[in-house]
């Protein structure tokens, strides 16, 4: 009986896995999983409700990003995304891989200084990085199709995540390092924060190198998509050098071909 009680709360994990696999709406899945876990551990309904309520309101900071929405909405209404994209197109040297690598480096360094809430998906990716990346990608001479546009946006969001995660652990004053130090100190092992933080550096560097390589490969794929697209619809070898206007007229059907091939 006690052995069974020890394993029963894992039912909550099972609910999450099945719910996500069946693509149910995640919010009810997660709440049901919490209730199942609580009941399996022998807690009363009142205890479970209080546990869910307390855990929920303790994490209110996770909703702070919605405060960026009014300002960003007003700017988007006045064409911020269009302007960012147009402006990037005029900067000749700023290619897609360079843009993403510079952002990755800045994001990592800021996170290493503990400034990981300075940038983020709401603060910087939607209003600035994603339109910049779209503008930079369109320097190949053909506009992005819907699939490619989504890929560029998703890759921008991924770059933000990777920069944040693998810079944060080098910062000594709060977050991960203090959690590690606190855990060990509870178990009788005293460590200096700096000792822990320094060993995060090799991974931080590896993260930059690996993602930078993937950025270059991703940008190359986006560029060659356009070239093969042009080859199927018009004269060969004209992809990058042709006048943007002529490419735009060719683009719609060539993009469809490109999609069928992939």
């Amino acid at each position, binding site marked *: 009986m006690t052995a069974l009680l020890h394993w029963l709360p894992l039912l909550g994990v099972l609910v999450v896995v099945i719910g996500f696999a069946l693509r149910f709406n995640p919010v009810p899945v997660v709440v049901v999983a*919490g209730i199942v876990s609580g009941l399996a551990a022998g807690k009363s309904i009142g205890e479970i409700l209080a546990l869910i309520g307390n855990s929920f309101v303790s994490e209110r900071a996770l909703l702070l990003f919605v405060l960026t929405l009014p300002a960003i909405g*007003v700017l988007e209404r006045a064409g911020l995304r269009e302007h960012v994209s147009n402006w990037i197109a005029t900067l000749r040297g700023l290619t897609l891989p360079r843009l993403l690598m510079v952002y990755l480096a800045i994001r990592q360094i800021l996170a290493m200084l503990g400034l990981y809430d300075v940038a983020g998906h709401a603060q910087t990716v939607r209003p600035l990085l994603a339109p910049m990346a779209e503008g930079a990608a369109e320097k190949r001479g053909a506009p992005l199709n819907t699939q490619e546009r989504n890929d560029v946006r998703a890759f921008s969001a991924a770059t933000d995540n990777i920069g944040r995660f693998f810079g944060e652990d080098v910062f000594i004053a709060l977050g991960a390092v203090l959690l590690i130090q606190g855990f060990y100190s509870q178990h009788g092992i005293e460590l200096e924060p700096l000792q822990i933080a*320094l060993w995060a550096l090799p991974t931080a560097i590896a993260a930059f190198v690996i993602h930078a390589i993937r950025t270059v490969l991703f940008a190359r794929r986006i560029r060659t998509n356009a070239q093969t697209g042009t080859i199927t619809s018009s004269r060969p070898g004209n992809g990058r050098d042709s006048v943007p206007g002529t490419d735009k007229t060719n683009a719609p059907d060539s993009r469809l071909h490109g999609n069928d091939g992939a």
Partner: protein
Amino acid sequence: MRRIPAFTGMTGREVRRIMLKIEQAYWLIALFLAGAAWLNLRERRWSHAGFWLVLAALMAGGKYVLDATAAHQHLPAQLAGVGVIALAALSPRMKRGHLVERDAAAREADANRLGHRLFGPAVLIPLVTLLVALFGAYVVIGSVHLFDPVRMTLTGLALACVIALIAALWVTRAKPAAGLAEGRRLLDTLGWAALLPLTLAALGGVFAATGVGAAISDLVRMMIPVDSAFACVIAYGLGMVLFTVIMGNAFAAFPVLTAGVGLPLLIHLHGANPAILGSLGMLTGYCGTLFTPMAANFNIVPVALLELPNQNDVIRAQWKTGAALLVVNLGLMYFLVFRF
């Protein structure tokens, strides 16, 4: 601006007066959500209105709930739990319909007219946050500290958003009501995805309190040959990834796996260096964060914000980086922890 006295320091005699606290940011969120609920109510979008209203109440009442729990009164927390369940029930009805935006030609015309001036308010958000994070502690007016040292960066972010909104209205000559209307447009675009990070954090609390962590680390220990140092490193690393994928958070995985596997097997039995093990163990967990929809604020919220069609689009873009980095981390762990 209200002045709220707060007690800090060990003696309790030193009274620090602070103007801006994170609590005010939560009230601001509640106000914004209530405004969005009101706009939805006028359009008879009942589910959306109810959803944002309940969330607004939880935002505004959060401190009261926590204070009551600290005083051993459980009713407010239970009511908050009922609120969370109501949100879960409303979530499937929050269809992520694209709300009408101003037409593209008008936006393009504005963009050409305003040009780089549009950047100002957008850049103000990270810039003001950065300034508060760096110098906020030194801003003292008389004996009043402008910023609460608790969660100062996030308080700075909230202040930055207010300043940026004022600047955006000024630059675009839009009416103040546009701030609410446009903010609400983006909020409804996000829909339930905005809520998921909090719900998952609540689940993490329940999992921790019901012993899910202990059960998982027992499972890991049952499956590995403990006298092989290599097997222990792999089990610890992959256990961190697995547990992070399930919880959506490496911070929740770390104490469980390190207490269950890292400390008894790697540090005590095989003599691993705790500093290196802790640091690389946490980073291995971060690789797991890149794989999981449970890390909603990093992997699902951007899908909604960037209006991507598939819930896993961001994970699809980043999992290869995560997988390569996982191999690097496991290698580093095996070669470093027994050597230093």
